[in-house]
């Protein structure tokens, strides 16, 4: 426990977490600080490209682990099943109607890439390595949860029939394509490719992440203010409990897969995190009657900060305790 607290304390005073806090405070104090939409998108493109590329290079470096395929399958299953658990938990903890509960559930099955990125940088700081292909697992976990959510919603007759267009949008959304694409580029070009561009994608990475988290803090703070009325205390409890449950599922899979401590922690983070980019967009198309204030407040305003500040050190401690290291 004291290990968790120590880690959490150290985590708390990292530039990354403090940048998020700065954004949060600025937004809650109604400062007009803001990052232009185009700049925020450019930062996210940079982060996706860099994290994908580095993952690919690491696979090229260490050779393909037997468990790559297994991990992908595990990720897909985790992503598809988590929404069912989330849906039940929501019904238990809150009075949310089934449509909104389905939409929220979809977010928790999918992943938040920036939480993943923050976790990799914590691993790096502590000198822990991880399986490079976890980036591919992250990409694989983005979409299946959406299908589960739509299935949950359709049992009520709500939700739209999946048209081909929507399938394409979900599986070829920009962040998946960029993540997988840069992963493959990193894999193909390997350490030699990395050497060519590492002063772009490695050295400045953490600084860029700080600015991105500043923006996330601003968004989370503004979302909290406007979403205040939309979520009750039960839903907030869900927003903290669910990532812990998710992380335990992730831990179990990691154990079964035989992942390293670092890889286990990353799989826990993926299972614990909730989407706030790809899934909301899919939900607006497929479940327009679901209320975005609810799922965005929970995902961005509750679970994301929880994971960033307390979750990541907690999951790392658990991984170290159960996987060894």
């Amino acid at each position, binding site marked *: 426990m004291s290990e968790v607290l120590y880690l959490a304390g150290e985590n708390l005073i990292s530039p990354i977490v403090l940048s998020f806090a700065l954004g949060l405070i600025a937004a809650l104090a109604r400062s007009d600080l803001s990052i232009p939409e185009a700049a925020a998108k450019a930062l996210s493109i940079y982060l996706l490209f860099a994290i994908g590329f580095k993952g690919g290079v690491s696979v090229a470096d260490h050779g393909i682990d037997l468990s790559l395929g297994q991990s992908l399958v595990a990720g897909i299953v985790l992503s598809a099943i988590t929404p069912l658990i989330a849906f039940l938990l929501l019904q238990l903890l809150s009075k949310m109607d089934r449509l909104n509960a389905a939409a929220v559930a979809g977010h928790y099955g999918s992943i938040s890439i920036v939480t993943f990125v923050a976790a990799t940088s914590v691993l790096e700081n502590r000198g822990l390595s991880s399986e490079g292909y976890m980036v591919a697992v992250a990409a694989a976990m983005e979409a299946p949860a959406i299908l589960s959510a739509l299935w949950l919603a359709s049992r009520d007759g709500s939700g739209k029939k999946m048209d081909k267009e929507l399938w394409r949008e979900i599986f070829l959304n920009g962040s998946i394509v960029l993540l997988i694409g840069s992963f493959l580029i990193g894999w193909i070009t390997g350490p030699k490719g990395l050497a060519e561009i590492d002063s772009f994608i490695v050295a400045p990475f953490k600084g860029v992440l700080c600015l991105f988290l500043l923006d996330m803090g601003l968004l989370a703070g503004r979302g909290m203010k*406007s979403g205040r009325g939309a979520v009750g205390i039960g839903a907030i409890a869900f927003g903290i409990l669910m990532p812990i449950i998710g992380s335990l599922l992730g831990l179990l899979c990691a154990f079964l897969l035989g992942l390293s401590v670092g890889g286990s922690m990353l799989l826990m983070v993926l299972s614990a995190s909730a989407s706030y980019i790809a899934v909301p*967009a899919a939900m*607006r198309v497929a479940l327009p009657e679901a209320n975005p204030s609810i799922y965005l407040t929970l995902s961005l305003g509750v679970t994301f900060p929880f994971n960033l500040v307390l979750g990541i050190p907690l999951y790392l401690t658990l991984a170290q305790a159960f996987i060894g290291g």
Partner: protein
Amino acid sequence: MQTHAAKRVEITIERVMQSRLTDALSAAGVTGYTILPVYGGSGRSGPWSRSGQVSKAGGMVQVVCIIRPDRLDALLESAFAVVERHIGVVCITDCDVLRAERF
């Protein structure tokens, strides 16, 4: 100068629905439109702004179509089918245009 009566239809719609709307318009034979970015707004679902956003969810665009009056109904019907379940505003104004042969 010589002008011709036409209709200006302004459809404010969620960004995620943009391609579905323009596909529907094309299917209904409306191939002329202009898309304006929207910075923010407010409605029954409260105020919003694009600043700092990465997700396509939670933003809107404005699609402006100028068409001959006799084609208005076809346009409205195809637009309505897309907008129906979604948030969005459809606003029609009388206007005059130069070079009517274009519409």
